[in-house]
């Protein structure tokens, strides 16, 4: 088998179980409360280790190496900055705004550091991931393009989204191999426009419904219509937002991962929007009915759906990946204090 050029579709596997994770999660919550939040860093490491080690690809699992102290340091810094900003703003608005501005300007750099931390502390088969995105790239992807999107009334939003994902994925590394991100802005524009059209269509439909139930065109009919069919309209609105957003999330994941390569291999993703919608609705109901106790189960279900819809088309042999010699040389000297983890979700 070795040495033969075999093309295999390897699906990601997620072996995490709800009740198993619940036990870990509840102890995390209890200890976090008892330590007034300090344990949260240890809880995060436990959680990520559980998720990573339960994620398998080609008979091997992933691993997370972040240390609680590094995470605690990052959280303490983030908290300190927020406190400083809030307190200053209260007593010296000008100075407060200056600090706020500084925070906004520092954000892309912090995000980049956070990406580096997360990827460096992730491994598979003993090889570490890495992130080699430049600081300039971070400012373009996290600040410049989003600002441009806002100033063009969101016409550039799909482009900003594509640039964001490009920065995030194209600069990734696994061992000495590089990730390559090939999704063009066109795909994002198609997606955004479709979502917009769907929402607009729903609104028009609802307006028509309202007018019909209000028995008359024009503003008067609209108002009486809304008054009469208020709850129904609300429900339709919420349902359509849920449906369109589920489609959106599914398509984004498929678009992004389906156009990502690693070395000679290629990822694939076919998340089903229908299953995603069902999961989101049932998760929400579960969490509400159990006053939050269902959350660990909800997380496991979501992760399983997203991961098991993805995989890697392996062109050749998985053992071809080798460690990044340069990374190994510098890893020892790289101060973890420099790379701190700021909790920002993507």
């Amino acid at each position, binding site marked *: 088998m070795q040495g033969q050029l075999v093309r295999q579709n390897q699906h990601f596997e997620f072996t995490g179980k709800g009740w198993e994770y619940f*036990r870990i999660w509840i102890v995390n919550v209890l200890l976090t409360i008892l330590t007034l939040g300090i344990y949260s860093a240890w809880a995060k490491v*436990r959680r990520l280790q559980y998720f990573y*080690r339960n994620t398998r690809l080609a008979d*091997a699992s992933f691993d997370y190496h972040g240390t609680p102290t590094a995470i605690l340091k990052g959280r303490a810094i983030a908290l300190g900055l927020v406190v400083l900003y809030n307190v200053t703003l*209260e007593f010296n608005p000008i100075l407060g705004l200056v600090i706020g501005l500084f925070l906004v300007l520092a954000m892309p750099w912090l995000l980049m550091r956070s990406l580096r931390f997360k990827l460096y502390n992730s491994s598979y088969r003993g090889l570490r991931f890495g992130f080699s995105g430049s600081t300039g790239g971070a400012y373009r992807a996290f600040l410049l393009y989003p600002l441009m999107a806002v100033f063009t009334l969101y016409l550039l939003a799909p482009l900003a989204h594509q640039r964001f994902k490009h920065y995030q994925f194209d600069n990734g590394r696994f*061992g000495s191999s590089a990730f390559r991100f090939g999704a063009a802005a066109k795909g994002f524009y198609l997606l955004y426009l479709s979502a917009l059209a769907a929402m607009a269509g729903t609104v028009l439909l609802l307006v028509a419904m309202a007018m019909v139930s209000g028995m008359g065109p024009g503003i008067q009919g609209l108002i009486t219509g809304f008054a009469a069919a208020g709850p129904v309209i609300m429900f339709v609105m919420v349902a359509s937002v849920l449906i369109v957003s589920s489609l959106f999330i599914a398509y984004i994941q498929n678009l992004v991962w389906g156009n990502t390569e690693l070395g000679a291999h290629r990822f694939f993703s076919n998340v089903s929007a229908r299953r995603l919608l069902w999961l989101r609705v049932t998760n929400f109901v579960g969490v509400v009915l159990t006053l939050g106790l269902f959350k660990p189960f909800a997380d496991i279900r979501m992760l399983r759906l997203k991961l098991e819809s993805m995989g890697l088309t392996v062109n050749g042999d998985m053992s071809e990946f080798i460690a990044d010699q340069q990374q190994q040389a510098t890893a020892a000297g790289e101060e973890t204090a420099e790379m701190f983890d700021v909790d920002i979700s993507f």
Partner: protein
Amino acid sequence: MSISPSDASVQVAAAYYDGQSAANKAVLLSIDGSDLLLRGSAWETRWPLHEVHVSERLGNTPRLITFAGGGHCEVNDHAGLAGLLAQAGVGRNWLDGLQHSMAWALAAVVLIVFAFGGAYRYLLPWGAEAIAMRVPGAVLQKMGDSTLEMLDRSLLDPSKLDAARQQELSDAFARLKPPVDPQMQYHIVFRSSPKIGPNAFALPDGTIVMLDELVELTGDDNEIVAVLAHERGHVERRHAMRMVLQSSVVGLVLAWYVGDVSGLLATAPAIIMQAKYSRDMEREADVYAEQTMLGNGLSPCLLGTILDRMEAAYLAKVREKHPDADAAKDSGAMDYLSSHPSTRERMSLMCPGK
């Protein structure tokens, strides 16, 4: 290599990664003396046990055995590994047990509920007091200003007392020696409010609002002074700030962790206006008033007298508006009566025999 048939040495299958490439090698792990032995198909290596690190149990995830010089093993045979570790004399840590026991998980849920209950009952008031006493004067000033503004806009009319009378009362208050050096600077502002009725209340920044209706209730200025002393007690102990913090747990957490007091400032006027101090706080203010009165050679019973008058005035107001007692829902009067403990109760300690 010595092979002994009676050797109960455990052998565990594992996948070995050398850390240089993604290739894996199937190995068998066993304990040999004080070493961990790895046996592959055509090779073997060993590591001293003290250079080997085994990851903790985490659900059913593979256990990871890391070697000091690099490389690691993934083990999926949990039972086998447990046997191997037992042979090497490695125990389980307590956290591991906690996280894998259903009984502990359920106990954790119960403990969390108790923790929240206890926190609300004890930690919250304690935290509110701790923070309130440390809040800077500027925040209290802002709170006072915005509350007075809101009151002037909605409930308070200008006072009808003449300037001389106002000055007389201000002087009487200024002459009052406080039991301890006051933290704030106090001054009285005069208003009228038929809606509220006879009352006086203090704002967090030391402004005391005196209503005409209270002044008209009695001819003895010392009774009014007693009320003012009671109100000063509320301010010195920062009861308004504590109430604001306590009623907004979210606000308290934000103030503690993040230093964000802006949310509190927004809700403060509404809470202060309701003036729903807890019984303990009323008691504290009463004690302060008692000390003040005694320190100035006045009888604490004067406070009782004016409180009786106020109670009577409110009851009269309620009956006048609603002769039918069941329908008594006059917000101002009923609020006062329901939120303040009965005068008899309060005065029983301060003014025995009344």
